[in-house]
């Protein structure tokens, strides 16, 4: 078996999500090749070559790949994909944007968000917002799938010594153009990879209060910050902090939900966390049903008290 892993990166550094995908590839078993499509991305290719378990790195360096436009990258993936038994990418917005397009170009079906490898062609994936787990078997000649990072422990980012081979670009498809981006800057750990996540919901009341109450707690714990959809829709925090079916899926060691009621869509994004703590003034909040520890109280007094006692 030969597995192609699409590297996730920003042209400078390899994104940690790729390490989880390589881990899934190892579970499938076979030769693992990593494709780095980017612009001025030699450093990314070098980093990928050091990843444990990777046997080859392909580098396609072209301005057309600078912003990971799906139209251009999918074309490249499809042009080399037929030589592999599996093509995998992370279940990030980049992976989800590119991979279905590549699969359709190869005329094969795709599996989204695998959480377990049952066999080379059999996988588990969540459906209905994580309320059911489907075992899916592919009869396609090439298995194309995105991998849910939190379901696989990352492989080591060093120890490997793969060769880097440059491959030709398939060029610009000419139907899409990158205009701009607005990336949210944060000193905190990345949400999907953090060991501890502190999330706020509608109950925090305002954006100002979100930061007043939750920033000290996140600082104290070295935690990433998340939010429920209600908090995002109300404008308390930016969208990329949303945890849930339509936001990010997290599975940290500790998830602290503050002022979050626990709608199905939110639970879909965090109920695989190892330990869940809920702080809510509502004794009947659905979040309590999945929480390991829940405390009923006013978050404006409970959270500062918690910070002072940590």
């Amino acid at each position, binding site marked *: 078996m030969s597995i192609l892993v699409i590297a996730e990166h920003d042209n400078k550094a390899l994104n940690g999500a790729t390490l989880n995908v390589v881990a899934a590839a190892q579970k499938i078993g076979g030769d693992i090749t990593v494709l780095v499509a980017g612009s001025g991305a030699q450093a990314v290719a070098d980093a990928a070559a050091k990843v444990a378990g990777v046997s080859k790195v392909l580098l396609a360096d072209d301005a057309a790949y600078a912003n990971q*436009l*799906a*139209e251009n990258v999918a074309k490249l993936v499809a042009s080399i994909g037929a030589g592999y038994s599996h093509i995998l990418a992370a279940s990030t*917005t*980049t992976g*989800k*944007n590119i*991979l*279905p*397009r*590549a*699969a*359709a170009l190869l*005329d*094969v*079906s*795709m599996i*989204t*968000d695998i959480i377990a490898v049952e066999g080379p062609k059999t996988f588990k994936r969540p*459906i*209905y*917002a*994580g*309320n*059911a*787990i*489907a*075992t*899916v*078997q592919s*009869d396609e000649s090439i298995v194309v799938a995105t991998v849910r990072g939190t379901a696989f422990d990352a492989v080591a980012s060093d120890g490997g010594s793969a060769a880097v081979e440059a491959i030709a670009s398939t060029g610009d498809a000419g139907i*899409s*153009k*990158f*205009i*701009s*981006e*607005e*990336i949210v800057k944060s000193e905190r750990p990345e949400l*999907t990879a953090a060991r*501890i996540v502190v999330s706020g919901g509608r109950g925090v009341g305002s954006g100002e209060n979100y930061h007043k109450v939750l920033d000290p707690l996140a600082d104290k714990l070295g935690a990433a910050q998340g939010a429920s*959809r209600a908090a995002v*829709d109300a404008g308390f925090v*930016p*969208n*990329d902090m949303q945890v849930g*079916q*339509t936001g990010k899926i997290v599975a940290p*060691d*500790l998830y602290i939900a503050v002022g979050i009621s626990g709608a199905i869509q939110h639970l879909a994004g965090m109920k695989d966390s190892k*330990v*869940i703590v809920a702080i809510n003034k509502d004794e009947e909040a659905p979040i*309590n049903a999945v929480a390991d*520890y*829940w*405390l*009923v109280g006013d978050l404006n007094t409970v959270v500062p*008290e*918690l910070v002072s006692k*940590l």
Partner: protein
Amino acid sequence: MKALVAVKRVVDANVKVRVKPDNSGVDLTNVKMSINPFDEIAVEEAVRLKEKGTVSEIVVVSIGPKESQEQIRSAMALGADRGILVEADDSQLGALEVAKILKGVVEQEQPQLILLGKQAIDDDSNQVGQMLGALLGSGQGTFASEVKVEGDKVQVTREVDGGLQTVELALPAIITTDLRLNEPRYAALPNIMKARKKPLDTKSPADYGVTSTSKLKTVKVEPPAERKAGVQVKSVDELVEKLKNEAKVI
């Protein structure tokens, strides 16, 4: 210009689904069904573009059982002009087959804008729009939170992991909607009545040359692992103590 919107009939977002005891799937008997929430946002966006004068006609297409007519009528009540139902056993179709049928519809209708939800809340696949883009050779603006049509181009602001990204696509283009694109309106009763009289064609996948079924087989469907019941703690001190000594996470 013409806009095509694809909608899917799915279990209502507020229903807590149950897995069938024989593990063959999720029990959908007597469960409330609705338009997939993301598709409703796609319909709303098309209607807003029509109200601005950008779009002249909105065609809604759904692929699924006969009952999907209800969801097409709902979309018409929101402002779509006509509907196409491709009657099929959608449990046998995967995203690739759906995309192939939609390609046939697009070739027949020649829309400039093709709007879909970013994912259906039942299979959570998030694939059809991207696959359709590939089959048509069109650009794709996935996870859209803002759409601006300018001449023969469309600027789409996309919700990506780090924040937002804006791309410009040549028309015809595919747009898949994210939750923040808009707030769908409610259908007014007179509009629901009017929607009953709007034209609705019924087709089959074979009309678009698609006869294959998905090569992905669902072997079984299980409920997720249950979390063991938690405990209510009475004080912050107790919480800190439990996190330190029992859970050992801090």
